[in-house]
């Protein structure tokens, strides 16, 4: 099974980085999250309900829908905040390899479990500096329109109905889903990002942020 990869590019002003990244991330995770599984007797389970919430952006003329899970939102905001901080320090463009969905393959001791990605979303962020308020206003609108297109792109990919991990048994649910959240259950994912300076060279090494799981050897 080959991992499918999707790349999205956005050009934003510095203060729009966070909202633009969150809009894309939440749209992806909305489609890759289910309700909490409750296993009953052997072979049967029930699924909880996923709520949704509209989020208005402050610096972009855009509204996106996210899963109603404060835990998930906090986790994403933390990572995006670090990404934005790194961008701000370097003054360059950023390459966020966000939302890498994977599933674990159990290995025998002493080997750790293998993480096999099955879907990778990469968001390339280009940061521009604007001088006047009029430019910022135009940027608000333009970035809003671009994000509308990105959401449409995400939806198109999601509805291709390509590979998805099989629904696991109770013993294997942690190999497929992130069961650590209280209210929703996204597929296992990890977020990493890379920042390049104005010259295009990598200023920082890739930072891996694991929500759950151990690093592969």
């Amino acid at each position, binding site marked *: 099974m080959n991992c499918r990869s999707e790349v999205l590019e956005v050009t934003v002003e510095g203060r729009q980085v966070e909202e633009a990244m969150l809009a894309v991330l939440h749209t992806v995770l909305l489609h890759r999250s289910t309700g909490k599984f409750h296993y009953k007797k052997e072979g049967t389970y029930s699924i*909880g*309900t996923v709520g*949704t919430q509209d989020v208005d952006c402050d610096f972009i003329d855009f509204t996106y829908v996210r899963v109603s899970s404060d835990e998930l939102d906090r986790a994403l905001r933390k990572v995006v905040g670090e990404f934005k901080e790194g961008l701000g320090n370097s003054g360059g463009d950023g390459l966020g390899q966000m939302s890498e969905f994977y599933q674990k393959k159990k290995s025998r001791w002493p080997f750790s479990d293998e993480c096999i990605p099955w879907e990778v979303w990469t968001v390339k962020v280009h940061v521009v500096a604007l001088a006047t308020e009029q430019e910022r206003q135009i940027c608000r609108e333009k970035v809003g329109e671009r994000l509308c297109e990105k959401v449409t792109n995400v939806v198109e990919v999601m509805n291709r109905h390509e590979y998805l991990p099989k629904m696991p048994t109770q013993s294997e649910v942690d190999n497929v889903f992130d069961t650590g959240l209280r209210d929703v259950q996204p597929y296992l994912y990890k977020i990493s990002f890379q920042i390049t300076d104005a010259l295009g060279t990598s200023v920082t090494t890739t930072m891996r942020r694991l929500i759950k799981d151990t690093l592969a050897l």
Partner: protein
Amino acid sequence: METDLNSQDRKDLDKFIKFFALKTVQVIVQARLGEKICTRSSSSPTGSDWFNLAIKDIPEVTHEAKKALAGQLPAVGRSMCVEISLKTSEGDSMELEIWCLEMNEKCDKEIKVSYTVYNRLSLLLKSLLAITRVTPAYRLSRKQGHEYVILYRIYFGEVQLNGLGEGFQTVRVGTVGTPVGTITLSCAYRINLAFMSTRQFERTPPIMGIIIDHFVDRPYPSSSPMHPCNYRATGEDPGVAYPSVEDSQEVCTTSFSTSPPSQPAALGVGSADLAYPVVFAAGLNATHPHQLMVPGKEGGVPLAPSQPAHGAQADQERLATYTPSDGAHCAATPSSSEDTETVSNSSEGRASPRDVLETAFVRKVGAFVNKPINQVALTSLDIPFAMFAPKDLELEDTDPMVNPPDSPDPESPLQRSLHSDGSSGGSSGNTHDDFVMIDFKPAFSKDDILPMDLGTFYREFQNPPQLSSLSIDIGAQSMAEDLDSLPEKLAVHEKNVREFDAFVETLQ
């Protein structure tokens, strides 16, 4: 297309499609309420949320949807459509979007109904939640208030896209294959939202684009087929809180199995208040709704058209007429298309590189126009440089510009003498020249007094005849003959001495 679907799967599938259709309508209408929607996640299955999504049910919307379906399900040739339109306080309206739930004949016989189809329908609803926030009508609906209201209408049958005007765009939300056909959910939305009220012609034009009659009644005739929603003032709890479920019809259980799936049951239907007006101000820009003209006071609607939309086929003015029974339609002046091939554009058109090289040899109506000779008409005075164009355009061979004719015999010595072989300014009679001669028409050279203009004068007098004394014939005479003729000349002069003397005396 029917397959060997067992009865239970068929029942389940019909139920899934039915409630998917109802939930689709709910998502669309709620997204146009004008407020942010918030529902809570629940880790424990409640048994009342279809497709594992917390989507509240507005009873009026469910009622309208069921009325439109009338017990039927979306099938091939029978689509369920949700029409979103906008209505101003003046009574003008236009269609903004048509959401279509359709089914085609492409079947997926291998798919599992109670598991895969159900989960994919859930995914499609999530996609619908996302897409309903990115179409232009969303931002309009968020700004609705006293000036305009958003209306919805549900109908079943053939999709009607005429009311969206020209250049509408479509976005496909997603598809789900089933054993009886493929469900497709899509949206067609209007791009150009600028329009002008027809009532502007019935009264004096507004001053400064603002109607001075803001004390108007709300535009809601009871016979309207569209359904408005009540407008909620901003500042209320953005999370819509609906009353708990009262009216339970079908409840959906959410038990699944990793082995052959169990049977989900029906869904409880909630209830909530629903009502919102939409008032629309003219001159909206689809891509920049915030550029809406200032509505003025309550009830007043500016009628001056807005600036054109960016990047869209927008016109500055559109005429919108709406009758409740006919539906809304807009007539728009088409945008001008480029036309570089007409003769009238000859001075502004572009020449291909090949044509530029052939300019000297091919007759053109005007500069930079590439037209076959027989298609060129020179009688029009509008053609640039027409006076330079010769009258004979039939063939290249007879084209004087390609094969200049021999110069005719001069009618006068002056005319004869003025012809020069190497003249660059005159039309040459030398057919052997490698140069292409054009008629010399100096600017401002028209002379009404003389029958000739400056160019003609120049040609005629630029080469005066040689002095006879300098002619070669005289020089050819020998010196001896001159000496022999000298005495005779002297004798003649002696005879006329007295005349010469008288002449000299007059000079003194």
